[in-house]
C-alpha cells in the first residue's frame, strides 16, 4: 500500500514537472481568450499579411483532395517552404496556409493570372501564445508535428491522471476530508447550476 501511495505521489509530481511549459501556455493563453478585449492592442495589427514575393507560375490542380494536397506540398517544396499546411481551392484561387508558431505563411495561386504569391503573417508574442494553445491534431506529416500532437494527448491524459491520483492522495489525508468534500461538492454544484442556466 505504501508503494502504491509513493507511486501515485511520484506520478502526480513528475507529470507536473514534465508538462510545466504546457501548463503555463494553456493558463496564460486562456487568460488572453477570457479577456480578449483587453489584449486586442497587443495582437498583430492590420495589415496582417506582409508580401514576401510574387511570381509567374504554371500549376495544374488535381480535382481530388488528396491529389490537391500532394500537389500543394510539391509547390511548397519547390519554393523552399515546408511545415504543416492546409490547402484549399476556392474558385479560381488556391490558398495554402503554412503553419508555424512564429512565422505563419500564406501562399496563394491565381489560376486566371497564373500568379503565385507568398505572404507572411505579422505576429506578436501573444499571437504565438494563442497559436500554441490552438494547435492540435495528427493530420500533418513530420515527426515533430506528430510529437506536438502526442504531447497534447499526454497533457489531456495527464490531467485525468492528476485528478485520479489527486483524489487518492486527498482520501489518504483524513484531516482534509470535510473541506475536501465541500470543495468537490461546491465545484460540482456550481457546474450543474451553470449548465442549467447558461
Amino acid at each position, binding site marked *: 500500500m505504501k508503494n502504491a501511495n509513493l507511486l501515485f505521489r*511520484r506520478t502526480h*509530481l*513528475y507529470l*507536473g*514537472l*514534465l*508538462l*510545466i*511549459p*504546457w*501548463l*503555463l501556455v494553456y*493558463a*496564460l493563453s*486562456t*487568460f488572453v*481568450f*477570457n*479577456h*480578449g*478585449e483587453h489584449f486586442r492592442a497587443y495582437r498583430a495589427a492590420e495589415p496582417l499579411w506582409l508580401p514576401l514575393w510574387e511570381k509567374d507560375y504554371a500549376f495544374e490542380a488535381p480535382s481530388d483532395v488528396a491529389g490537391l494536397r500532394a500537389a500543394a506540398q510539391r509547390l511548397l517544396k519547390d519554393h523552399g517552404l515546408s511545415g*504543416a499546411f492546409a490547402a484549399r481551392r476556392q474558385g479560381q484561387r488556391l490558398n495554402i496556409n503554412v503553419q*508555424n*508558431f512564429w512565422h505563419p505563411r500564406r501562399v496563394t495561386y491565381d489560376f486566371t493570372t497564373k500568379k503565385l504569391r507568398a505572404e507572411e503573417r505579422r505576429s506578436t508574442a501573444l499571437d504565438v501564445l494563442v497559436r*500554441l494553445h490552438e494547435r*492540435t*491534431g*495528427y*493530420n500533418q506529416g*513530420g515527426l*515533430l*508535428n506528430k*510529437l506536438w*500532437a502526442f*504531447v*497534447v494527448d499526454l497533457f*489531456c*491524459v495527464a*490531467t*485525468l491522471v*492528476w*485528478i485520479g491520483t*489527486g*483524489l487518492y492522495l*486527498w482520501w489518504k489525508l483524513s484531516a*482534509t476530508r470535510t*473541506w*475536501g468534500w465541500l*470543495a*468537490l461538492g461546491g*465545484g*460540482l454544484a*456550481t*457546474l450543474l*447550476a*451553470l*449548465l*442549467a*442556466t*447558461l
Partner: protein
Amino acid sequence: MNPAPTPSASKIIRRVHLYLALFLTPWMIIYALSGLVLNHGDLVRGWYGGKFSDFEKLEERPYTAAFSADATARLIGAQVLADLDLAGTFQVQGTPTQPKLVITRNAALTAHRITYFRTENRLLIEKQSLSTPVILNRLHFRHGYEQPFVSAKIWGFVVDLAVVGLLFWVVSGIWMWWEIKPARTTGAVVALCGFAVFGLLLATI
C-alpha cells in the same frame, strides 16, 4: 494550555493546491476530454458519420416585429430570442440593415440557430444535434465576460479561476517538489526534458 499551532507556509500551500483542485475537478475533466476530442477531430467525426454538429430544422414560422431605425443587431437578436422563449447567451451575424440576421443561441447543452429573414417577416429555427463531443467542445470554448447574463459571467470567472489554479499548481508543485529531497534529481531531469522538448517544438514547427 498550549496555543494552537500556526500552520506552516508549506501546509497552507499544500491545502490550497488540494482544495483548488477539488473545486475545479469538473472543469479539468471537461478540458481534458474536449482536448482529446479536438486532437482526434477526424476520428471522432467519423464515429458520428456526416451528422457531427449539424443543425437540423425544427420549424419555420412567420414573425412580425417593429424595430426602431437605431435598433442594433444584438437588440433585434435578443428580442427574437425572448419571443421564442429562448433568452440567454447568443451571437448575431449580420447588420440591422441586411435582409437576413443569423442568431446563434449557445446554451450549455444545446444550441439553436435562428435565421431571421427581415424582409420576408419569417424565422427559420434550427437545433444542433446533441452529442457528447459537441457539448464538451462547446464548454471548452465558452469564455469571456461580454454576455450580459449572470451565469455567463460566473462561467467567465471560473475560467479565470482555472487559470489561477493552473499557475498556482505549477508554483506550488515546484515548491513541494523541492521539499522532497529524494525527488530532486529525477524531478530536475524530468522538468529539463519537458523544457527541452517544448523549446525544440517552439523553434521548429
